[in-house]
């Protein structure tokens, strides 16, 4: 990739950053028309850059553009929508689009797990908490972003650093396949299992078995921690705390 195409990508990212900046809730009416102009032009430019073999020699399939568009637009709305419920619902859209992109890359098991765990479990928990903390009107901390310009600038720098050199990656077809070392004198290498799910399953219980057990322990610890954090003091029938002697609070007993 020549430096010119890298600058082209930076320009596209800058356009998108300006769109996100105008879409951020900043008090008053959001400038949706300005944001839409910048955002749509950035998106079209991004798809053109991705599609015209600038970033890599072979252009991706048509479904890629559809799901990439959905993912990017929905992610922009997650971070800019003033109501958290809508943010959570747009996040479901992000998850589904990313799962579709994973399917396009041949990672079917991970895609299904993503939909089940994220859209099925994590998002429901988020929605419960949002309902729990529901306010009658949209509070000011949702309609006023904190330093949106600096945040967009930080995101732009990060994105340019990560994605600016993406064109230097070789495509998988170009790479020579790495020869697999045959163990000498040992048992012959078993043939790889068929399919993505079977291969992942075998890898999980052979190569990553320690990590698998550790993640189970981690989930248990997190469950206990979450219960301890969110626990509420429930009054028990017939129990009342021993009364503090009057006049001592604040003198001998620390007030906090």
């Amino acid at each position: 990739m020549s430096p010119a195409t890298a600058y082209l990508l930076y320009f596209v990212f800058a356009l998108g950053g300006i769109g996100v900046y105008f879409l951020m809730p900043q008090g008053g009416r959001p400038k949706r028309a300005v944001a839409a102009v910048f955002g749509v032009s950035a998106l079209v430019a991004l798809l053109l850059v991705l599609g015209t073999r600038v970033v890599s020699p072979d252009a991706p399939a048509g479904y890629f553009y559809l799901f990439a568009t959905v993912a990017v637009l929905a992610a922009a709305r997650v971070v800019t929508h003033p109501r958290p419920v809508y943010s959570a619902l747009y996040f479901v859209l992000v998850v589904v689009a990313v799962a579709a992109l994973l399917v396009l890359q041949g990672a079917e098991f991970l895609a299904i797990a993503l939909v089940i765990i994220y859209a099925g479990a994590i998002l429901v928990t988020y929605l419960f908490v949002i309902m729990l903390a529901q306010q009658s009107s949209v509070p000011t901390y949702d309609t006023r972003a904190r330093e949106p310009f600096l945040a967009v600038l930080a995101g732009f720098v990060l994105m340019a650093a990560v994605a600016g050199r993406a064109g230097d990656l070789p495509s998988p077809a170009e790479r020579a396949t790495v020869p697999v070392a045959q163990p000498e004198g040992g048992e012959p290498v078993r043939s790889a299992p068929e399919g993505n799910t079977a291969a992942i399953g075998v890898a999980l219980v052979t190569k990553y078995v320690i990590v698998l057990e550790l993640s189970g322990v981690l989930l248990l610890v997190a469950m206990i921690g979450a219960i301890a954090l969110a626990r509420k003091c429930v009054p028990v029938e017939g129990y009342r705390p021993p009364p503090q002697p009057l006049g001592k609070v604040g003198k001998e007993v620390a007030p906090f």
Partner: protein
Amino acid sequence: MTSVGQYVVVGAILFALGLVGFLARRNLIVMFLSTEVMFQGVVLNAVAYARLHRHLDGQAFGLFLLVIAAVEAGLALGLIVMLYRRRGTLDAEAWSTMRG
């Protein structure tokens, strides 16, 4: 099979959008939703590089990343419920006195 660079770019965009949301929004719940968007970008990048190098490490990494995301969501939401009970608001600025 399509190429890897496009997926890396989309993953980077998702990650950067999540970062922008985490820095700019003041609602605790939306801040943590933004970290989940960042997780999506990371999963996309991990799987793209796994395909580039033709092995399963990236996909296994994505699975363990799901575990971390679940743990993070559980603990973060427990914390948010506790903080909301204390102050009655989800504003992150309400806790700015904890700054050192």
